[in-house]
């Protein structure tokens, strides 16, 4: 069981996502504001963050939050972030994996909305597995 934080301003979507992940046995907390999500992360580091891009006050708050999290320390830089987006800052509507890098967008994976939950669940499991094996490798060293 992992602790997952879902940060998305769309409560209907966030709660549906939380339900799906809870049914998979995870502990899920929903934050509807990006600032509260950042506070929550610092209070208790989640095993995985599901992060939306657009928030009401800032169209690219998710991008900024992902970058801020990187700077919170090594522990946070290694935290997997699954980014969800209905838009793309570039063009067209949906950025590709090639945009994910530490300079432009430091996240582990992304999904375009509307989300197919079977794919989301698969990605969540894969990211948690990857994070766990990375942490095992590190403790082994």
């Amino acid at each position, binding site marked *: 069981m992992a602790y997952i934080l879902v940060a998305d301003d769309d409560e209907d979507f966030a709660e*549906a996502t939380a339900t799906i992940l809870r049914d998979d046995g995870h502990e899920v907390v929903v934050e509807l504001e990006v600032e509260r999500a950042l506070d929550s992360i610092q209070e208790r580091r989640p095993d995985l963050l599901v992060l939306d891009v657009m928030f009401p006050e800032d169209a690219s708050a998710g991008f900024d939050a992902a970058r801020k999290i990187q700077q919170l320390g090594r522990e946070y830089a290694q935290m997997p972030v699954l980014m969800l987006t209905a838009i793309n800052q570039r063009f067209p509507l949906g950025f*590709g994996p090639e945009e994910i890098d530490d300079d432009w967008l430091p996240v582990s994976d992304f999904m375009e909305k*509307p989300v197919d939950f079977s794919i989301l669940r698969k990605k969540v499991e894969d990211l948690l597995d990857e994070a766990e094996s990375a942490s095992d490798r590190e403790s082994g060293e």
Partner: protein
Amino acid sequence: MRKNDSKPMTPRETSVYELNPAAHSGAGAPSGGGPGGLPESLLRENELWSCRFRWMVVAVMIMFGTFSFFPAIFRPLGFRTRLWWPFVVAGLATISNILFLWHAGQFNISDDGGAATVNLWSQIGIDLILLTGVVHYTGSVETYISFAYLFHVILACIFFSRRESLLVTTAAAVLYIVCVELENIGIIPLEGVYAGGHIRDAIQQQPLGVHLNVFSAVAIWFVVWYLASALSAMVRQRETELEEANTRLERAQQERTRHMLRTTHELKAPFTAIMANSQLLLEGHCGELPEETEEVVRRISDRSERLAAEIQEMLQLANLTSESSAPPKYTVLSLNKIVQGAVEKINHIAEEKNVTVEADLEPAEVAGAEEQLEMLFHNLLANAVFYSHRDGTVRVETAGDEASGATARVSDNGIGIPEEKLPSIFDEYYRTNEAVRQHKESTGLGLAIVKQVAEEHGARIRVESAPEVGTSFTVQFPPVNETSSETEEQKDGLHTGGGR
């Protein structure tokens, strides 16, 4: 805009916000320069240009001095020979040029703004003094050499504000008048390039003599200054206006893009939530649903998905066809990599339909906008998969040819398109009945996007189809060189880059 509240509020509770129209008008000071003079970057270019020009003057002086050492040629023409002053002028110009170039190099990186102006003004000062020397030794009133001051007058009109160029003109006039008057009084000896007697003697015998000549020359300089500086100010004013207009357009464009992104998000968000909650119901997270209810929920989910896709395609198409949108950056791209990326993205849909995607991708290069080409091939491949029968095969090929351009072909052995319907397939929202029967979620915008992108890239599309046999779309791109010469003029320049 003032926030009002019907209830009286204590001063501490009251928040006031006034919307200031000026802050949102988009008008702002243009960057750099302004109507007074040139921007610092241009001044820098000009100081270097002046130095290059001065090397030519040095060469001319040395040549002139050298020729005077051939009395056999020069003496019969009535010129003085064995002139030393051209070498002195060339030497001084060389020293000053080296100093100016050193100064320009020193302050090039610091970018403190004023260095270029100081450099250019010093160059003007030194040049005027050297020119006065040349004027004196060539013959200040006997020759037309004094008109060489006009070069400085006109250059000052181009480089500087009217007031500054007037200062240069006045300085030139003062130096010239002082030179001639000192010659008149006899403080400095009369010089000239003519060997026999002084033409000046003849001029000085007239009542107004030298003064009339000097006055007419200086008057002409001031007339030239007036005309050139007025013209230059007009051109500069126009440039400032254009710069402001361009800034406003760029801001409007950015605002439009932001608005489009926000609209996309706002339009898609409700469908995202509807689909997410439909999935909760369909996957049994809220308990088992009766069969009939499940069917209704599935319909809601399918229609939401279609509407979300339609909104996305409408916005993509609107953005492609918008005249005001900024032209995308064209780069040399690997077509096979772009197509490979599109194949990877479509694979999960193909797997669901048990459609095999066979790719034979030879290296090929195109000049274009990567994101648009990705859209083009995503739509062609999605169509090929959607309109294939179960267990069908979609074939994708690319081929490169430097002379005739790259080609990409997407073919399927699906439902095909009747001949009479082929001319309409690229129309917005057009869907054949056969297509609707096969894939009712289609929006009818995919091929309109394909057409728009192809037109943008100067590509030709050939469609071959036969009902129940299959369809093949061949996209023929123009050669990279051809596209690059067009795009350098029309677009934002061509840059070489990777495919993905």
